[in-house]
């Protein structure tokens, strides 16, 4: 069994006086896993992603990423932790329009203090691997949606993070481009990259991840192998949550985790 990359313990996150966005969630993701977080709008998917990325803090509970408690980090420490250990891919790519592709990709490395020449060499490799090297000098507005997302993935991998977080990575893409990005994520995972994908697209979860977690109203209602999620949005999901997901011993020996390990 590989070491845990993400560990959430009894996490509660509440905005203002409303119901909790995440309600007593515990979860473990191990190195090399490929996990999809699915659920309807307002289920807490983005909150979960923000907590893992250190962009937000829980009201209670703990969030550990790659051995570091991120819920206790200050802004600067969280930023340094993020750029070293987490790569992020967004639905709308979030590329900077006034920088060309290479400058976008090298940015995380430069923020971490890497020299431009070294960063450019790494960016070139990544762009080649991802098949967008011919656009290295172009500006993002000249690329197709799929190409932009590939550039975004290259940028996310720039600092060789142990964890790649993708928030609706195919949400703004046409079907063909979406398939292309899904294949890319699968290949990355096959090479050992831990991937967490937040999506409402079950087809994407099935195609590029091995484990799927379903969130409803801030609680995990299902955690199982992605190839068995056909009925996951039905009512049967909640029963599977009880003891299956909430592994209080921290071992992550849940039904879902086992399925994921099996898939890998």
């Amino acid at each position, binding site marked *: 069994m590989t070491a845990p990359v993400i560990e959430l313990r009894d996490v509660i996150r509440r905005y203002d006086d409303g119901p909790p966005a995440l309600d007593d969630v515990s979860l473990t993701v191990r190195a090399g896993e490929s996990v999809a977080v699915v659920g309807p709008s307002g289920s807490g998917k983005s909150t979960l992603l923000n907590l893992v990325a250190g962009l937000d803090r829980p009201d209670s509970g703990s969030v550990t990423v790659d051995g570091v408690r991120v819920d206790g980090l200050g802004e600067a420490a969280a*930023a340094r932790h*993020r750029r070293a250990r987490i790569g*992020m891919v967004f639905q709308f790519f*979030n590329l*900077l329009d006034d920088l*060309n592709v290479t400058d976008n990709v090298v940015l995380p490395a430069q923020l971490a203090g890497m020299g431009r020449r070294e960063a450019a060499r790494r960016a070139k490799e990544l762009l080649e691997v991802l098949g967008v090297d011919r656009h290295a000098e172009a*500006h993002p507005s000249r690329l197709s949606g799929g190409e932009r997302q590939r550039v975004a993935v290259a940028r996310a991998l720039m600092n060789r993070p142990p964890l790649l977080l993708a928030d609706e990575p195919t949400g703004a893409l046409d079907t063909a481009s979406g398939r292309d990005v899904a294949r890319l994520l699968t290949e990355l995972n096959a090479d050992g990259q831990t991937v967490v994908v937040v999506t409402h697209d079950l087809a994407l979860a099935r195609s590029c991840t091995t484990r799927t977690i379903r969130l409803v109203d801030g609680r995990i209602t299902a955690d199982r192998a992605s190839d068995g999620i056909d009925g996951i949005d039905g009512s049967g999901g909640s029963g599977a949550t009880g003891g299956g997901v909430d592994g209080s011993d921290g071992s992550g020996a849940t039904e879902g985790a086992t399925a994921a390990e099996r898939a890998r």
Partner: protein
Amino acid sequence: MSAPGRVVRSGVGRRRVPGIVIGLATLMAVAASLLGGTLVVASGAPFDDAFARQRGAHLSLQFDADAGGPGQLSGTVHAEGVAAASGPFRTATVTPHAGEGVPAWPMTVAGRARPGGAVDAVTLTDGKWAARPGEVVLSAGSAVLPILGKRLTFPGLPGEPELTVVGVARSVTGTADAWVVPAQMAALTAPGGAGGYQMHYRFTEAGTAARITAGREAVTAAVPPGAVSGEQSWLTVKESAEHDTALYVPFLLAFGVLGLVMSVLVVGNVVAATVGTATRRIGILKAVGFTPAQVVRAYVAQALVPAAAGTALGVLTGHLLAVPVLAETEEVYGSTALAVTPWIDAVVVAGALGLVAATAWASAWRAGRLRTVDALAVGRAARPARGRRAARLAGRLPLPRPVGLGLVRPFARPARALATGTAIVFGAAAVTFTVGLGATLGKVMEAKAHDAADVTVEPPPPELGPDGPLPRTGPLADPAEIAAVIDARPGTARHHARATARATVAGVAGVTEVVSFTGDASWGGYTMSDGRWIARPGEAVVPTGFLSATGTRIGDPVTLHGLGDAVTVRIVGEVLDTRNDGMEVFTDAATLPDAAPEASASSVAGDTTHHIALEPGTDAAAYAAALNEKLEPLGVTARAGGDDRQSSMVLTLNALSATLTLMLVAVAALGVLNGVVLDTRERVRELGIHKALGMTPRQTVAMVLASICVTGLVGGAVGVPLGVTLHGLVVPAMGHSAGLNLPESVTDVYLAPQLLGLALGGLVIAAAGALLPAGWAARTRTAVALRTE
């Protein structure tokens, strides 16, 4: 509340920073304009009122008694251009004795039967007019303290006549120091003394110096050449009367203009930027049914609400700032109570609000014309990308990446950078101007004080009684004895004695101080505006005020009366000095007659001071203490340092300029803050991306500060020469208003390192304005920022 009203209220409430910026800019412009306008009016009004009421003389001429008789002079009233005239009045220069030990100063006395007349109607302020010989009316500004019942004797005149003060009067152009009945004049005219006649004229046209000259030529055409021994134009008197307040006018005018331009810029920039960032909101307003005119009105009102608040505070500030300045003006005109004139308030308030409304209207017009569909599409359509080349270049610079990312920002939004830069330019210019003004004023005060001496020896000041200075008791020391003590003291490098006597100059009423030096005084801190220092007896240097009042130039001879024999000196230089309105003559002691009877006995010796330069390394305090042991029997005291003079005007000017500069810099910094806040708000998603990629708060602050660096540096580099130019224009104008011809040594105050420091001041203003929004940017929650699509 109507729908547009609600939109305005919510707009003002939501956008606090632009509101504060508009309010402060308006406050400053209104305060400076109000103060400037008030002073322009206040400086002229009292003199103009008095001049009109007293039918003041446009030109007063002094005629030599020998050159033309009264009959010949009466004929001059029919000359072309003369509207009215009075005279001839017999005049004489006399030196009255007002009591034992009281300094005796010469004065011009005129024989007039009554105070009124077609021209120069003298106003009686106390007592009555002289009705018979033996009575005298003193001018309110006379050197002899005008107290009713005081007896004046004239020991220098045959028969030693005695006069009793029966009244106090004031002539608006100061045509004489005292008036007696004409029958008294014979007894006051010394045989062979400087007797004469004076005539006062009003001309049909007298607004310019050229008109006065033309009038003078017309009236003197019929009298023999050389008959005119002195003259005084009302323009000179007016200028002198307005000196104190006129000094402020060019300076306040500069700040007023700076403030107004800044207000227009800031309001235009803020409203345009508000419209720019609220495009989507405007689209929604139009989509729900707002007409273009309603949209424009809503945005104009959003600017007018804070501008109205700023105007109200500006009026208050202007009135408060006017108090110390007007108090000085009141001193000049006695008890006249001056206040800000209501019509100035009205004009300034209407002007400021009108300007804001017009600027806001022009900027908001774009919002009205914006097509609803385009406005709604904002944020979703890609913005035209600018500054990509700069971005690529910055990416290759050996700088931390956040700094590089910040540096290229002005190239992405050139219009906003220009507006922000302009605010910085004005801030830097104001600081540069104020620093220069302070330095110049300091140098002027230094030059006026003539305080180059290390040690000064002076007699104790006379004690003051209810009727003025009390007579001195005890004998006065001989200056030569004091000089001998100083010479004998080790550590003395050089020294000179300075004595002051009083004289009159033909045609100019009032006393001219004659400062005479024993020994070389060229090192004594006298700043020459033109010409050279005195080199031999018979030469004199005079301040600008003397030259303009007497109409003389360097190289001209001038005759001084009231020092016993008439003394003629040749002017060889113009010295910087404003004491006694510049009516001073500096000359060598040997120029003056040995026996200046009344003057020397009671005045010169008593006023003699000795100024000592010490050998290098000599301790001034120890030297003065040692010297005092020897000087004690002589009744004089030595103290370390030169003349100690402070000017309340300089303090007021420095305080005023510092206040106005602070306000201007605050507005500039707020202009920057507004620009950066808008930029930050516009870039919030971009900031979110940076932070998601691992940009730390410190790196975010560095990026935002760097985004204003280029603008700040360029603003400083442009603002500093602008401030220097402004200083070069305004300060000589101020000097001119104050009757000073400022030499280069006083106006060339900027040093290269100082200018460099001031140029970096632009960066400081920029950083000060950007720091707050940089902090906000650093604290922006990434998750929220990323959701901003």
